């Protein structure tokens, strides 16, 4: 059996373990793992869909740019959650362990482990691409913050009434925003 055939055959099992382990990174993950409803369970459903697509792209040996949407689907969420940068993107590297585990568990496929170098290199490349997306998301998050400050709502707590502006002016023109 070729590696590609084995991965296809074990796809369901690999994805199941991989998705579960990723969702286990949330303190209370039962609902995230159980509900298939895309609207009721945005974290679980998007991560499930994103990781599934990434695995399918790996099987197809897709071009690097094809991964962007699927990676974004997962990373955009984890980039604003309570994770360190490494925790946010580590699920992609986890796939290496999951694939090895699943192949090793079956006598028919255990010998294929020695052929994994290329796939594992691809997985690492995907993880690095995920990190690029992570930094883009973080940059975007800060841009959103800046835009909000510029839009005027900051004035809620900076009280730009005339009397306060006059007070500011007394301090000197450089202090006026």
């Amino acid at each position, binding site marked *: 059996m070729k590696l590609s055939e084995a991965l296809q055959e074990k796809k369901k099992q690999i994805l199941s373990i991989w998705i579960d*382990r*990723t969702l*286990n*990174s*949330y*303190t*209370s*993950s*039962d*609902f*995230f*793992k159980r*509900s298939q*409803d*895309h*609207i*009721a*369970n*945005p*974290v679980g459903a*998007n991560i499930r869909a994103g990781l599934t697509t990434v695995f399918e792209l790996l099987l197809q040996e897709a071009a690097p740019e094809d991964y962007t949407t699927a990676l974004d689907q997962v990373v*955009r*969420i984890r980039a*604003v*959650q*309570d*994770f*360190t940068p*490494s*925790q946010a993107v*580590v*699920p992609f*590297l*986890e796939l290496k*362990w999951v694939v090895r*585990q699943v192949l090793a568990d079956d006598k028919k496929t255990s010998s294929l482990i020695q052929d994994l170098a290329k796939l594992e290199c691809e997985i690492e490349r995907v993880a690095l691409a995920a990190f690029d997306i992570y930094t883009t*998301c973080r940059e*975007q*998050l*800060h*841009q*959103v*913050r800046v*835009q*909000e*400050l510029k*839009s*005027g*709502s*900051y*004035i*809620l*707590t900076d*009280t*730009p*009434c*005339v*009397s*306060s502006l006059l007070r500011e002016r007394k301090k000197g023109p450089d202090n006026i925003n």
Partner: protein
Amino acid sequence: MAIVKVDKLAKSVAQGPSLMTGSYPTMDWMDVPAVFKPGNFAYPAKVDIVNYLNKQQGLHFPNAREWSPLDDDWKLPENWKEIIIDGLRERLDKFRSLKIFMDCCVRCGACADKCHFFLGTGDPKNMPVMRAELLRSIYRNDFTLAGKIFGKMAGAREMTVGVIKEWFMYSYQCTECRRCSVYCPYGIDTAEVTMMLRELLHLVGVGINWILEPVSNSNRTGNHMGLQPHTFKDNVSFLCDDIENLTGVKVEPTFNRKGAEILFITPSADVFAEPGLYTAMGYLLLFHHIGLDYTWSTYASEGGNFGLFTSNEVMKKLNAKMYAEAKRLGVKYIIGGECGHMWRVLHQYMDTMNGPADFLEVPKSPITGTMFDNTASTKMVHISEFTADLIKHGKLNIDKSRNDHVIPTWHDSCNPARAMGLLEEPRYILDHVVNRWHEMPENCIREQTYCCGSGTGLNTDEIMELRMRSGLPRANSVKYVHDKHGVNTLACVCAIDRATLTSLMNYWVPEVRVAGLSELVANSLVMEGEQRQELTDGLRTLL
């Protein structure tokens, strides 16, 4: 319906070696401390703000000081524990609902997976049942026989400084949107539990600036922004100039005019910040279109009431200006603009807090003759109810094609939807002012609508990450209709929504922007005597 046992809420164990270093629970929830770090808490209230509020008649804001959630020592008063327990006792006596909510929860878990904060974080303490449990455990310990005898076995625990910190963390990770309450078989209003937690925290000087500064501004000038009368009037005048440039129509609203038939009150953000400005231009055009005899007030210049997010005393005090101004001006009734929580205060508390408004008349549309009997007690009509009635009677000259640049979806703002049942009117209006719009999926609209994630005074920028998490369920459903139908506009009737959903969209679905419903109405209006420019982007067109 999810079946969740509280003691098993957070048991998910990783098997095998793993690179994943997430937050697997290894302890009972009571033993997991709240950990503060930059980005997960809103800044504490400034000393001068707290001192100012404490000096106001009928308000109590003690323990003004410099402090930070990052510090171990929160500089609580020496007898903080006594203050909290006495405060809880007082509230249990005063609010029958609180006593019932503390007693009647059977922990069925129906609410557990309905909270946008839980759905965005996976943190079990953001399950509404657990958030209430943070208070309920103290209630059991000090106010129930079972708790006194069996302690932890009965779900009770001692009040500690750690509990104060936990309350601060999680009562400010709740937007009081009440989605959870829709699913609760006992009708527990978890928002009121959060309200009580926040009230208790204020008793020991724990509050956030983004709420208390607008409260203080409102108390001083009537509005969150702290705008004085001339500034408020100037801002509206600027909008009138913009309207004239765009449409050639000169709109001349009046301010503080005694004898006007109607007083109009809206969030001050509408006359100050984008994209609310366009909604305010919408009101101005609409009222001009029908020749309404109305006035703005530079005193009742705020529909929003951050008192709702602070304490019942503050809510009552800030809300009082609406009736006071209506009485002073001698109007017949009030029309309220596109605000969210204003309608919760108004619909559920105003009558008993500030009423009866027996000096006002039951609202009757001067254009159609329709009696708004649903507002017989509060005497205050929602702008969408008023507009839908105008459309129904054919009183608006509308050209839908003027909105062809927008493909909206409808966001039911939490409070108008769940607290006053405003579900059909906005949809009826949309049907008549745009050629095409699309609903989001059924389980996230109407009563089941998802919150913007930044309500109840959480729309401050220092917690942007947290807001993006809690807003994920809403953003995710908007993305769904954007991908499926090409939706490019998220329409709503709430000022906080207009500000916060804009940020939310900018991160999650940047192709979608946010618009007030009255903006879309005004876009479509054919005004008498208009010399309209080519407005390819409606009222937002840059000339």
